């Protein structure tokens, strides 16, 4: 399911451009010349660097013509993405990019309506539970074909679910959906029967890609097979995957026989741009048609693109929450403690004090510059059915005085230096895990350090490329956390249940933050077994209320999806929800399936690329400086050698 992608631990690692290296080999300098002349030379070179900057900053000649329909008349839609593919196997893929691609290549039993997220027919045309709620019967469509010509039937779906339920399948990404399954059979090619152990409310939202049995039967161990060996990959979705190069591109071609109708573009390419600025530049030049809003375009990028001709910036409410997670004391399923979370955080008063001293409004205002909604409940307001808001007296709004009071009550008084000290004399110093690749983490860290510093709490911002090691080991006090939420909230709720805890200490597990609470678990099981949507939503809201009061998860904001595309390449594209929503990373294939190519006569020229030029110029200054320096050093050492 595409929720995990967003989780900090499995987020893609953006690598950094390596410019400014100090070790630029330089050659053109003569080996021997008197020192003064050399110094003048150096000064000259520096001046040259400046001149170079000036030269670059002037407007360039008209930008190169943008890419459009190829010579063979094929219409290609190129999407710039920042994430890497973790796996192309429908059983293993977890990241947003990979799961979005698999959405395009494989059908799911049901799909979500683009307008309001309700379940609509996908591979199944109809589904209904038995009277005892324990047997579900799906009618499978008879007009879906695999791309190798074979018919897709209920047999394929049954095989997929049985594989997930098998021993090797439990190690895969979607096994959570089938934990409650007793038996899955396909009595006829158009009928799939699922028997459950307990009632399960998510039966119309099983985000499990169905795979072709005749292809996957031949795979040895599905928990190790990444499905990237032979192309094209057999599928039955609106697109067929034809080529893939790690961290370069994923190519898909339209499935002309798709039952819902063929996509309008002939080819869809996901191109990797590790740097969002590079992706924006490519969009401005027309090399790509779309820049994915993950990470969201920064306000500066968005406002620049808004002023660019033929580019539309799409901003919609996000599916994701951005939160502060508090380590509640890492433990295994057998309640064996591990990790080294700060003991003070076991006190609810301390957690709430931390909550109270965070000004979420200011964060939305300053860090997100309005491109987010202030955080309250666990589920983003976009999913209005399940979203919850704290009542006025429950709300922990920004109140440093009250926070100080709570800390005093908890026994952490300020000492002479203004630091809060516990009864054992230890200062209240926390560490926070942050993703080195996420600018928002670092920015919010700066605010937290100051807010908490005023309260007398120390904070060390520990930014890592891969936070999963300390996270799984429970070696953190606080952490930046974030998940994409599906229309069905079961998954994001389940990651706080006791069942999600790791079996062995420091092992990876489904748990988000080691939370395990009896009351929460009761509510979780209650909502899962509830078939009445209104009653289920009630329970889900109760769970969020508990989570809010516990102070374990401080939802800071719901960042908006900010993405952009070229209107001279894409005429129209469906957002989800249709009224105001996102395009990349939808719970369905609507955007790419529905995208209509523009006429192909591109009229625009590139807007100003001054930004890029200046960036290059700044780098050039540094590089030339480094080069000059290196040249001087090299010569100096050459002469000193004996």
């Amino acid at each position, binding site marked *: 399911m595409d929720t995990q992608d967003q989780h900090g631990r499995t987020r893609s690692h953006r690598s950094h451009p390596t410019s400014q290296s100090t070790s630029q080999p330089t050659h053109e300098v003569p080996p021997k010349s008197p020192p003064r002349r050399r110094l003048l030379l150096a000064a000259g070179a520096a001046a040259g660097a400046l001149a170079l900057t000036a030269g670059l900053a002037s407007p360039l000649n008209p930008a190169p013509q943008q890419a459009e329909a190829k010579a063979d008349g094929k219409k290609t839609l190129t999407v710039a993405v920042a994430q890497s593919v973790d796996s192309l196997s429908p059983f293993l893929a977890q990241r947003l990019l990979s799961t979005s691609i698999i959405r395009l290549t494989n059908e799911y039993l049901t799909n979500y309506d683009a307008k309001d997220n309700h379940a609509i027919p996908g591979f199944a045309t109809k589904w209904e539970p038995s009277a005892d709620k324990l047997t579900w019967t799906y009618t499978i469509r008879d007009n879906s074909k695999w791309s190798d010509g074979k018919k897709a039937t209920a047999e394929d779906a049954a095989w997929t679910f049985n594989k997930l339920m098998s021993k090797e399948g439990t190690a895969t990404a979607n096994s959570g959906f089938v934990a409650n399954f007793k038996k899955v059979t396909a009595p006829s090619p158009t009928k799939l029967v699922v028997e459950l152990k307990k009632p399960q409310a998510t039966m119309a939202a099983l985000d499990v890609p169905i795979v072709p049995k005749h292809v996957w039967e031949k795979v040895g161990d599905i928990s190790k097979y990444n499905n990237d060996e032979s192309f094209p990959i057999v599928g039955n979705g609106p697109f067929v995957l034809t080529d893939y190069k790690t961290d370069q591109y994923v190519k898909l071609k339209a499935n002309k026989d798709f039952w819902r109708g063929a996509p309008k573009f002939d080819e869809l390419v996901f191109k990797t741009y590790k*740097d969002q600025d590079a992706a924006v530049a490519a969009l401005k030049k027309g090399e790509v048609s779309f820049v994915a809003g993950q990470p969201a375009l920064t306000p500066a990028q968005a406002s620049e693109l808004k002023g660019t001709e033929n580019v539309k910036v799409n901003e919609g409410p996000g599916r994701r929450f951005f939160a502060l997670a508090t380590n509640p004391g890492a433990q295994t399923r057998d309640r064996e403690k591990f990790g080294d979370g700060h003991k003070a955080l076991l006190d609810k008063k301390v957690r709430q004090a931390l909550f109270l001293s965070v000004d979420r409004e200011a964060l939305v205002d300053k860090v997100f510059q309005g491109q987010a909604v202030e955080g309250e409940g666990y589920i983003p307001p976009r999913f209005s059915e399940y979203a919850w808001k704290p009542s006025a007296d429950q709300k922990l709004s920004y109140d440093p005085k009250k926070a100080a009071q709570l800390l005093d009550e908890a026994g952490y008084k300020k000492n002479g230096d203004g630091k809060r000290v516990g009864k054992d004399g230890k200062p209240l110093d926390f560490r926070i895990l942050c993703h080195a690749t996420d600018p928002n983490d670092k920015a919010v860290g700066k*605010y937290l350090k100051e807010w908490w510093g005023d309260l007398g709490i120390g904070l060390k911002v520990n930014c890592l490329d891969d936070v999963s090691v300390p996270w799984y080991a429970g070696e953190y006090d606080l952490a930046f956390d974030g998940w994409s939420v599906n229309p069905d909230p079961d998954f994001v709720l389940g990651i706080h249940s006791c069942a999600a805890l790791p079996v062995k200490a420091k092992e990876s597990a489904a748990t988000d933050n080691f939370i395990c609470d009896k009351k929460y678990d009761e509510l979780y099981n209650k909502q899962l077994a509830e078939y009445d949507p209104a009653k289920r939503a009630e329970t889900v809201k109760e769970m969020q209320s508990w989570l809010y009061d516990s102070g374990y998860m401080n939802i800071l904001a719901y960042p908006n999806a900010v993405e952009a595309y070229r209107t001279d390449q894409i005429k129209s594209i469906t957002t989800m929800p249709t009224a105001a929503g996102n395009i990349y990373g939808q719970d369905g294939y609507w955007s790419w399936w529905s995208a209509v190519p523009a006429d192909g006569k591109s009229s625009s020229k590139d807007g100003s690329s001054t930004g890029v030029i200046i960036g290059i110029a700044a780098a050039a200054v540094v590089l030339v400086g480094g080069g000059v320096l290196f040249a001087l050093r090299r010569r*100096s050492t050459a002469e000193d050698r004996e």
Partner: protein
Amino acid sequence: MTTESAPTTPESAPQAAPQKSARALARARRRHSAARFWREFRTHRAGLFGLAALVVIALVAVFAPLLVGSDAQSVTDAPGKPMESPSGEFPLGTDQFGRDLLGLLVYGARMSLTVGLLAAVLSVTIGTLVGITAGHFKGWYSTVIMRVTDWFLVMPTLVLAIALAAVLSGSIWTIILAIGVTTWPTTARLVRAQTLAVESRPYIERAQALGGGHGHIMSRHVLPNVMPLVLAQTTLVISSAILTEATLAFLGLGDPTGVSWGGLLQDAREAGAVSAGDWWYLAPPGLAIAVVALAFTLCGRAVESVLNPRLGVSR
């Protein structure tokens, strides 16, 4: 900056009156050689330019709180709106938190200079120790230690520093350590060569004959003679250390809560200033790095040519 250890050949010591104490003599000699050094240094115009630039930047860094206020780094009390363009109130505009970029640039000088100086001192200290001992002891010790040095020499410094900074937690001490332990081999090789040259002189043999031990020879005879080289090397290493610091910070490996020039460039990139064309955010930190690195290099070259007799001859 180099008064203490300027080399003094016996002839250049002043012919002071015999009744003066040894200490007074030494002091006079040092004063004299400092004056001589300064006289020589003054003749290098580029060196003077570098020195002047450094003094100005150092003063700015030291008096930063007086110049731009002590809360220039605070995000919660930021005075402006995010990403403002230059104006009378904010000569260089504001960053994404609404902080005055000029203030940040001034504070950035502190971090860059601190890291540059400390890392250079660490690097040169390691290099000198390794170089002198390798040159003095010779034999298998020298062979082993020089192979280690060679190994460090061929390792790409930046990659090694990135690896170190990534493994250790992000703070300025990590950066200092990462630069210090990766850039010493050049100094080590230089110092070793000089040590070999010094040790082949007859007076070392005499000192040994008179009972001078290893420690005595290395600290009393070799060290003072390699000191000029070490000093010049330090000034040169500083500028490369500053550049490396900026690079590491730009790559996001610096202290995320501190302000440095490289960090400013990184912040600018993350805020999308490159796409938006906000040159006032990008250019000043880049120029500042270039200017400081250049100033140190100019100074270092001048110091080197004053102190190194072989370079001095050609003038």
